């Protein structure tokens, strides 16, 4: 339903297209009628299973067909045969269904179910190592999806689930994940999904390494400063920056915070000279000045001047900018 251009066809082409389509519909309805017949009869045979394959190959969003398939697989197979059938489904998804439908919720759900069911079977057969191997393999696979589309939120979400599964099996990957976000950010500073993931990982990574937020703040600020100076118009690094500074203000010693704010304000002033119409720099300056609790007439005036400039260069959001004005007391 998204991104479909209008194609203008002449009457002859339209008529030809219609004939082809009517034939396709006729073929499809045969599959549909058979599927509905079997489903209504609560058929639990291999025939029914094959019917779901046929349906889903034509219509991967037919969620009832996926539901039926999940009822049928353990009804038709058990034990090692079921494990093999699940592996087969996973290959089918990886090679055929997912590449064509990378953002279908139903398809990702089926993948999840196959893996969860397979994990249970392997665990029951005392093959714990195989389960770990299975999840590690999933991590490699999901990375391929992210190479194709770094903003595919289904893939990112699935990645997080795989990491959690591995954690529950005693495999802790916080350090590797932390490095992963850094590499995604380095590839493309405009990788919002990576900065977002990093914001969630930070507390987990700190806990895993048993280090304090204080000890990493400067490194994070350096990473961010590099990002701003390279790509000042990429919003994601600015949002992460605001979040990190607010976190510092909540958790760290007041003097430390005041010093960090002061040095970042100085840096942003420098950057603003080079990029005088970059709204991200201006809004972050306002943010930092607001974050520092001190109030003065000077500060209020500085903020007012920034707000006026913002309203001039970004008039759509003038009402928002108006809410940023500070009192001087």
């Amino acid at each position: 339903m998204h991104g479909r251009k209008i194609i203008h066809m002449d009457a002859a082409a339209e008529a030809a297209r219609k004939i082809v389509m009517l034939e396709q519909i006729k073929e499809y309805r045969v599959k549909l009628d058979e599927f509905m017949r079997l489903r209504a009869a609560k058929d639990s045979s291999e025939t029914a299973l094959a019917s779901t394959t046929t349906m889903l190959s034509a219509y991967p969003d037919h969620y009832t067909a996926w539901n039926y398939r999940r009822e049928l697989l353990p009804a038709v197979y058990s034990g090692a045969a079921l494990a093999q059938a699940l592996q087969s489904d996973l290959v089918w998804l990886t090679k055929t269904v997912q590449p064509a439908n990378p953002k279908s919720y139903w398809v990702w759900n089926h993948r999840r179910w196959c893996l969860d069911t397979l994990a249970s079977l392997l665990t029951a057969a005392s093959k714990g190592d195989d389960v770990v191997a299975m999840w590690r393999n999933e991590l490699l696979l999901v990375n391929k999806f992210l190479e194709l589309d770094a903003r595919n939120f289904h893939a990112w979400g699935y990645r997080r689930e795989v990491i959690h599964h591995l954690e529950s099996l005693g495999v802790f990957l916080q350090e590797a994940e932390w490095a992963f976000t850094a590499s995604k950010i380095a590839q493309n500073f405009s990788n919002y999904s990576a900065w977002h993931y990093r914001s969630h990982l930070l507390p987990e990574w700190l806990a895993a390494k048993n280090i304090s937020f204080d000890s990493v703040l400067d490194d994070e600020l350096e990473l961010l400063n590099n990002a701003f100076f390279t790509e000042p118009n990429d919003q994601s690094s600015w949002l992460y920056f605001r979040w990190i500074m607010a976190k510092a203000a909540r958790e760290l010693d007041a003097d430390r915070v005041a010093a960090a704010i002061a040095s970042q304000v100085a840096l942003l002033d420098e950057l603003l000279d080079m990029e005088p119409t970059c709204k991200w720099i201006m809004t972050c300056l306002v943010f930092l000045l607001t974050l520092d609790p001190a109030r003065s007439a000077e500060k209020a005036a500085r903020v007012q001047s920034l707000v006026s400039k913002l309203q001039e260069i970004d008039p759509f959001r003038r009402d928002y900018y108006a809410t940023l004005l500070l009192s001087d007391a």
Partner: protein
Amino acid sequence: MSPSPSEKLRDPASRLLVAKHIEYIKSLDDQKDDLEYWLTEHLRLNGVYWGATALSLLGAPDALGRDGVVQFTMSCYNADDGGFGGFSGHDSHMIYSLSAIQILAMHDALDALPDREKTVQFFASLQKPDGSFTGDKWGEVDTRFSYCAASALTILGRVDAMDVDKAVEFVLACQNFDGGFGMVPGAESHAAMVFCCVGALHLLNRLSSVPNLSALGWWLSERQLPNGGLNGRPEKLEDVCYSWWVLSSLAMLGMVAWINRDKLIEFILSAQYEKGGFADRPGHRPDVFHTLFGIAGLSLLGFPGLESVDPTYCMPTGVIRKLGIERAPLAATSATEAAELAKQ
């Protein structure tokens, strides 16, 4: 379809192709020669909700015929669990069950439910101990389903059937570094999920206590691109459906003034197809999904000639008022960045 100066001077309401949109929506069930019609059967009930709501906002609430609509909706009912599938013979799922409740409410036909309590339990039973909701018995968790449950149960007058505190706790756990919300804890902010989370919290009367509302409002206002259209998350393309997800969220938060109304109206109007319907953006094929959200967006912006839409439910305001379940938007500028930062 950029308006000429003379077009702009004309009565603005005339630029909305009301009659064409009504005809377009009415024609949608007559598409059996289109393969795509067959391959979207699983969401037909959603389609009826989108179409019926759009027609209502266009001032033609009975254009699809009340009896036919109610009959079709009930054909999607599954007696074994009290829920609804996307079409007759399809399994029950939250998404379609909410559409069913919305359609029945709009047509004053909630009494068509053969066992109202069973339907209430369909929604309530999908809540997990952590407060989240699954879409169906297969266990997919998503804040979309928190919204579906909150809306359906509010319309049915049975919010008490869910654990409200836990539901709120889960939704709040989905708030991110940028103030936005994702589909599960840890998931990236996305305007559709923001609508679902803000909507769910608002329905459950907990919106005013959510942290970082000013940051959220700003994130939402930053969805407006130079061409006036709205995108769903940073660095993505504009799309008419975000005229709803983003705009209704801003409306609930009392922050609609934080985007440029006129430019957004221009964008939405430019996505109309001359033969009827709205597409995701100008020059693309229309569909009933974008038709509803384009029209609902225009209604929220006060475009003349449209019925009022409720931002929390995406249903006609009249219907919501009659049910006595309206939620007032938060007072404008009740949240400022300075106040929020000071609170932390």
